[in-house]
């Protein structure tokens, strides 16, 4: 893809902002004027009130902490496990041929299917979400690590060896830098899968966390509160998204 200019990015953001503004105008019209059922679509005012109440009363903090720590722990496990396993497999071309299709095939099955198993073994506390998130995010990270290390050009390795590079030097100076961008992509995908999985797990079956709050509000038919939590999660998710993009840009510039 052609490099996006600053102006293009600005244009994109403007359109997205315009879309959101338009959406909100439509929302206001639907609820306050056209009289759409408040069960499905509460008034913007009500949602805003609930949201402020949540923030002011600090009810946001506990679920936020649970979710974010769950994500952090499960992502750490997935990253270490994924890169470790990926590296070990990538060392042997044979192992790659045997195992890579297995990993790829397993990724095609939504790991969500196994969620009940995680609940069975870890209970309905945060542990099951952590395990579930870690398991799900493991695959893209491992697959990308295998691909990253596996696709280092033979010629680069030969060239370094001919100049007398040791194993450690080869790893640090050739393999790691060459594989890094692909691994990073895997880490990025893995992060969002981890975040969505933890949230999903909390929504499906939990007593804590942001996902649970959304599901609980839905159960009680308190639409305004549910929408408030949804808005909150979307804001957090978008911020994380932006943060990850920023980190990625810094990494790229540093690599240059």
């Amino acid at each position, binding site marked *: 893809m052609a490099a996006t200019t600053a102006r293009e990015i600005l*244009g*994109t*953001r403007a*359109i*997205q902002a315009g*879309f*959101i503004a338009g959406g909100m105008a439509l929302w206001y019209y639907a609820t306050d004027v056209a009289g759409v059922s408040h*069960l*499905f679509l509460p008034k913007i005012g009500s949602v805003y009130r609930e949201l402020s109440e949540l923030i002011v009363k600090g009810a946001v903090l506990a679920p936020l902490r649970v979710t974010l720590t769950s994500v952090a722990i499960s992502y750490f496990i997935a990253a270490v*496990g994924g890169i*470790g*396993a990926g590296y*070990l*497999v990538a060392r042997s071309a*044979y*192992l790659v*041929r*045997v*195992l890579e*299709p*297995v990993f790829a*095939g397993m990724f*095609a*099955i*939504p790991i*969500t*299917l*196994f*969620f*009940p*198993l995680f*609940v*069975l*073994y870890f209970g309905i506390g945060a542990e099951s979400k952590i395990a579930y998130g870690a398991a799900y995010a493991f695959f893209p990270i491992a697959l990308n690590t295998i691909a990253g290390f596996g696709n280092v050009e033979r010629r680069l390795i030969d060239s370094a060896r001919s100049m007398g590079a040791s194993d450690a030097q080869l790893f640090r100076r050739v393999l790691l830098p060459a594989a890094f961008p692909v691994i990073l992509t895997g880490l990025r995908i893995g992060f*969002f899968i981890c*975040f*969505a999985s933890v*949230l*999903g797990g909390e*929504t*499906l*079956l939990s007593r804590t966390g942001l*996902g649970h709050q*959304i*599901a609980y*509000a*839905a*159960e009680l*038919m308190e*639409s305004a509160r*549910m*929408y408030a939590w*949804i808005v909150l*999660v*979307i804001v957090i*998710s*978008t911020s994380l*998204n932006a943060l990850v993009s920023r980190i990625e840009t810094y990494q790229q510039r540093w690599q240059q």
Partner: protein
Amino acid sequence: MSASLDAATAGRLARGAARRPLPPVFARLAILIALLALWEFYARMFGDPAFVRPPTEVVHALFGKILAEDTVRQAILLTFWELAVAFALAVAIALPVGLVVGATRFTHRSLFPVVLLLYAIPQVTVLPLFILIFGLGPAGKIAFGVSHGVFPIVVNVVAGLRNVNPLFVNSARSMGANRLQIVRRVVLPSVIGSFFAGLRLSMTMTLLGVLLAELYVSTAGIGYFTQLYSETFDPAPLFALITVLALMAIALNEAVRRAELRSSRWRG
């Protein structure tokens, strides 16, 4: 982590025995058999029956409880049906949307940012909302599946349209092709490749959406049974049920992959 150790051990065992690496297919089979054997042994010797049952019992539960029982079988079939409908709807919606968004620079510039915005929201956040609106029946599951499945197709079709080789267009123009002919003979065939690539991801995503919705609604459908077996600590039928669904997922994925291969025979 222990899985990879077992794999390495099994691999080494297999290699040692043959004195030459097994073809990967057999290696995988060997690993699978080794894991199953390990599982069987562990479950019978040490396993807490509330959490672990040997594979033989799982197979037994498969035919005894899952496939035999009407209610469970119907739940599975319902899920499959919901998936089929959701996938078909997703394609029917996403293909024209993708074609429109990617058609001109203007539509791309003005509409694609919206697509990206929606794609960035973790959809599981609005799962309770979907169920609230569409109810506890199949409609909600289908709707949630559709909302997952449309994005890969739209993104891929848009990319396919943007990446039509201008050289081909120029060549066609020089031979006298009019706009309609260029679209039919150059643009569309170019896009079909991308479309099929997006199709497979769409199938996985649609399945994800339907599954999430099913698991969320634990009053009926497979969500009911997974919760039932979990709560009564009856792992055998739980494993069996999950296995059936996993096989269904693999089969569907494979079907789409075959269709993709057949459409891109010319890639040589």
